[in-house]
């Protein structure tokens, strides 16, 4: 609750607020009601359009689609964490011939749209160069290159946000560069950036839906397929509603993990500053 903009309301303000509240509720419910009315009026809740949900073959089809989505997510998540770590190490390197190319790679893959990247991998490389890249790998590689670059920035910001004294003390103890990084800096930085890393994984999960556009058989693809089946009564809206619920539920669970970690790390003041620095340094956009 923000107390910046107003004091604790008095009797007059309370009445006025209640009035605004009622108007707001009427407007919002009106909008939701209108959409529901259109759904009912066009017969989207008729039993015939929901029959598909009882067929076992379709249940299995949707389950396979869900597994396809989760598979692409899992592989892309692991690979982008690895790529992110490598690129971050490159950017943090003191050798220019390492850090410059790493910076270029990160900036390049963050600047071009993910979908264009996936199209380049799928249509461009396979048709232009004759290499055969499956839809799965086009999607996963695209997600990896983009999210790996974003995660590299997260990792770098997390390490740079640590107080200088940490690495200075470690060097004074005679540690090597690698030791300073792995024994002193990373353990502290990883904690601070966990919430941001998980939020980025939510982005990976959301972006697996882009696979639909290169016909990777994930949830949206099957939704489109089922929705165009004439003998089921073209149930595109019912299927889309179910698929949307699945997607949103999965992402909400991951987001809840990120929020939990963030709340837990708020117990220590130093960690808040670190986490804030990580968040500020990284664009939190959710492409």
């Amino acid at each position, binding site marked *: 609750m923000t107390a910046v903009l107003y004091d604790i309301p008095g009797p007059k*303000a309370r009445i006025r607020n209640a009035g605004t509240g009622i108007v707001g509720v009427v407007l919002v419910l009106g909008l939701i009601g209108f959409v529901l009315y259109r759904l009912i009026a066009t017969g989207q809740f008729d039993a015939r359009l929901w029959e598909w949900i009882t067929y076992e073959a379709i249940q299995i089809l949707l389950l396979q689609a869900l597994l396809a989505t989760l598979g692409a997510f899992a592989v892309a998540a692991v690979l982008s964490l690895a790529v992110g770590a490598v690129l971050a190490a490159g950017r943090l390197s003191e050798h220019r011939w390492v850090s410059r190319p790493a910076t270029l790679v990160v900036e390049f893959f963050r600047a071009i749209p993910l979908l264009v990247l996936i199209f380049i991998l799928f249509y461009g490389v396979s048709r*232009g160069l004759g290499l055969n890249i499956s839809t799965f790998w086009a999607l996963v590689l695209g997600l990896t290159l983009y999210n790996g670059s974003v995660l590299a920035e997260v990792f770098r910001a997390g390490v740079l946000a640590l107080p200088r004294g940490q690495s200075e003390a470690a060097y004074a103890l005679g540690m090597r560069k690698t030791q300073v990084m792995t024994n002193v800096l990373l353990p502290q930085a990883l904690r601070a950036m966990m919430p941001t890393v998980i939020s980025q994984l939510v982005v990976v999960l959301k972006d697996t839906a882009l696979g639909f556009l290169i016909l990777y058989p994930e949830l949206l693809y099957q939704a489109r397929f089922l929705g165009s089946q004439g003998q089921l009564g073209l149930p595109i809206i019912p299927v889309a509603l179910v698929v949307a619920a699945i997607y949103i539920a999965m992402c909400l669970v991951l987001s809840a993990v990120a929020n939990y970690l963030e709340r837990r790390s708020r117990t220590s003041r130093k960690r808040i500053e670190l986490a804030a620095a990580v968040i500020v340094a990284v664009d939190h956009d959710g492409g």
Partner: protein
Amino acid sequence: MNVLLDNLGLFGQAFLGTIRLFIVAAIGSLVLGTILAGMRVSPVPILRRFGAVYVSTVRNTPLTLVFFFFAFAYPRLEIADLSFFTRACLALIIYTSAFVCEVIRSGINTVPVGQAEASRALGFTFNQTLSSVVLPQAVRAVVPPLTNIEIALLKNTTIAAGFSVLEAGGVYSALSERGYNVLIGLLWVALGFLILVVPLTVLQRRLDQRWSVSR
């Protein structure tokens, strides 16, 4: 080079489409995002709740799914016959405004409570407090991340291409019909986006460095 020069008209038209979609969606999402942020900081609990539910739902929905609804499901509802361009704009506005709302809200929250309390103690009205004390400080915290969100929006316009609106991401299908090398065509598209995005990123970093030290 031939791929670009022979199809200059196609590329030009496609990028104009991208920019048109971007501008309409950017303005729309700023308006809707500001309204939502207003709801989220308002003294009315139920409006705050509505805002929070909207933001957490939309932020956890893939943009492709929003497009899917507007491309395939919306026409079935028979509400009004909208062109694909309008529907693409609506999808982008609905999606982006949730992010805009969060940025504006956290920007307002960065202003210390003492600032508003002091201005109220000086006898400022709500509008005066907001316009001459809180907002000028909040803008500094809002503009750099807002630029990031608009950059993301610019990149997200490509998803409209997958659902067939003529813009930069859709060049590939036209090129392959004409028998040109798709890879080179797509690399030119990527370069076009670099040209559009990199200046915005530089601007964003400048703003961030200049304004972040103010407190």
